[in-house]
C-alpha cells in the first residue's frame, strides 16, 4: 500500500509573527521556515506504518515555491521514499491544494493519505476533508491513534467531548492531531541518503488546476492588544479583587 503525505512549508512555530505595516500580510522575509508541525506528525505516522510492514512506499508531496523542496527533503530524511514538488509562488488555498492532491491520488492510487489537521499559517483546517470529498473517500480527522485493519483503518479521534473511534474503509484520508506520535529527528546518515532520493518537479497546470486565490484578502492587521494589569500580593487579595469587580 502506497501512502501519500502532503507537507507544507510554513513559518517556524517558534518565530514571533509580525504583521506588515502596510496591512498586506505577515512579514516572511528572512524568517526561519520549517515543515508544518502537524505534517511532521503525518510523516512520522507513515514511516511507522512502513516499519510495521503496513505501507510499501511513502510519497511526500509539497505545493509551493522552489524552497518547498527543502521541506520534502526533510520528509525524505525522516524516511519517506520519494517526493513530488508542485511548484507555484504565492498563496494556494486549501481547495486548490485538494484538487492538485486529488489528481496525484488518481495517478498514484495510494491506500492512505495522511495530512496535518491544519497548517499553522492560515489555520484553515480544510485540506484533508476537501480531498476526501473530492475523491469520495471516508476521512478520520484529528487522529489520536491509528490502527490498520483488513481493508480498513481503525482511528481514535480527538473530539470536543473526549475521544471517538471510527472505522473507515480504505482508501481513506487521515488527518493528524498533536498526540498521534512524537516525530523523530532525521539522523545525519539519513540526511545524506535523502539527498539521493528522487523529487519530481511539476506545475499546477500539469494537473489542470487553477491555483489563483478565490478569497480576496483585503487586509491583515494586528489583533487588539491586552494590557498587563496589576500584581496582587496574596491569594486572599486576588479573591477580594475578583469579588470586587463581580467576576466571582
Amino acid at each position, binding site marked *: 500500500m502506497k501512502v501519500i503525505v502532503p507537507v507544507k512549508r510554513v513559518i517556524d512555530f517558534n518565530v514571533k*509573527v509580525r504583521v506588515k505595516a502596510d496591512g498586506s500580510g505577515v512579514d516572511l522575509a528572512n524568517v526561519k521556515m520549517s515543515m508544518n508541525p502537524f505534517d511532521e506528525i503525518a510523516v512520522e505516522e507513515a514511516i511507522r506504518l512502513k516499519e510495521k510492514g503496513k505501507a510499501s512506499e511513502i510519497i511526500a508531496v509539497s505545493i509551493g515555491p522552489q524552497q518547498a523542496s527543502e521541506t520534502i527533503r526533510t520528509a525524505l530524511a525522516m524516511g519517506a521514499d520519494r517526493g513530488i514538488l508542485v511548484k507555484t509562488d504565492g498563496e494556494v488555498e486549501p*481547495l486548490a491544494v*485538494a484538487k492538485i492532491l486529488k489528481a496525484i491520488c488518481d495517478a498514484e492510487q495510494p491506500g492512505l493519505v495522511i495530512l496535518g489537521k491544519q497548517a499553522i499559517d492560515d489555520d484553515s483546517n480544510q*485540506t484533508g476533508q476537501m480531498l476526501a470529498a*473530492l475523491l469520495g473517500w471516508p476521512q478520520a480527522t484529528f487522529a489520536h491513534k491509528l490502527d490498520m485493519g483488513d481493508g480498513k483503518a481503525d482511528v481514535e479521534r480527538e*473530539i470536543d467531548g473526549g475521544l471517538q473511534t471510527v472505522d473507515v474503509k480504505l482508501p481513506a484520508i487521515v488527518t493528524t492531531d498533536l498526540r498521534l506520535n512524537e516525530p523523530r529527528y532525521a539522523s545525519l546518515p539519513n540526511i545524506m541518503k535523502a539527498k539521493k532520493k528522487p523529487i519530481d518537479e511539476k506545475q499546477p497546470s500539469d494537473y489542470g488546476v487553477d491555483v489563483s486565490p478565490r478569497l480576496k484578502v483585503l487586509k491583515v492587521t494586528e489583533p487588539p492588544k491586552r494590557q498587563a494589569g496589576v500584581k496582587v500580593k496574596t491569594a486572599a487579595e486576588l479573591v477580594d479583587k475578583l469579588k470586587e469587580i463581580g467576576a466571582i
Partner: protein
Amino acid sequence: MASLVIAEHDNASLKDSTAKTVTAAAQVSAPVHVLVAGSNCGAVAEAAAKLSGVEKVLVADAALYAKMLAEPMEALILSVAGNYDAILAPATTNGKNYLPRVAAKLDVPQVSEIIKVVSPDTFERPIYAGNAIATVQAPSGKKVISVRTTAFKAAEASGSAAVEKIQPAADPGISTFVGEELSKSERPELTSAKIIISGGRGMQSGENFKLLEALADKLHAAVGASRAAVDAGFVPNDYQVGQTGKVVAPDLYIAVGISGAIQHLAGMKDSKVIAAINKDEEAPIFQIADYGLVADLFKAIPEMEAELTKLGY
C-alpha cells in the same frame, strides 16, 4: 434567499454554539434556517425552533446521523444546499469535520472560524494562531463559513419557527462509528462556562488537578489545561485550551501554573477577566493578565479556597 445553520447537539440538547452561529448567519443572509441532523433528536429541533431569527427548522432524524459522521453529513447538507446562499456551522470538532467536504463538493472556498461579519461577503478571521487578523472577501456565489462561536452572542430563545421533517440522504457506507470515551463531569462545559480554571505544566501531575477541581466546584467553574499539561498526560485531550484545542472566552479565566505560550494565549485571550498564578514572575501570561499573583500554586490555591470558604462560597 436564506442561510442554513447546521445545529450542534448531542441528540438530547441543543448546544449554545448553535445559537451563536445563528447570530452570525443572520448577519450574512436572513432569514435563517437550522438543519438538525441526529437520531431521536426531537427535543433538539424544538429548542432550535425557539431561537430568535430562525424561520424554519429542518430535521433529518435517522440512526445514520446519531454521531454526525462527516460522510453522511456531507450528503445530507448537499441535498438541501441548493436552497441557500450561505451555509454555516460552528467551528466545533463536528463542524470542522464535515463542513469542508460540503465546500469542496460545491466548489467554493470555505471561510474558516470567522470572528466578525463585516458585510455579507466580508469576514474577519484569525490566522497565525491569532497573531494576525485577516479580513477576507468571499467570491460571489454560495458562502460556506465556520464560526468561532466565542466571538458571537447567542440568539435568544424567544422565537417560534416551523419544524419540517426532511428525508435522510443515501448512506455513503464508507465510515462506521465504533465507540467513544467522553469525559464525564458535573462541572460546566469548557466552551460555555462563565468561569474557567486551567492548569499547566506547573501542576506537576494529574493528581494535583484535584486542587483546581476543588476550587472549580466552589465557583461553578470548568477545569481546563494547557497543551503542556495534556501532552504530559495529566488530563485528557478535551481539557486543552489553545489554538489547536478549544477556544474559550469566559467572564473569568484563572490560569494556574501556565507560562503563557502563544498557542495557549490564542485560545483564551478574549476572556473578559484573566487572572494568573505562577511562581515565575517573568512568565508571559502576566503580560496579558488583569490580575497576577507571583506565588507557589501549591500554597496559593488552598489559600484561595480558604478565602472563598470564609466569604461563604
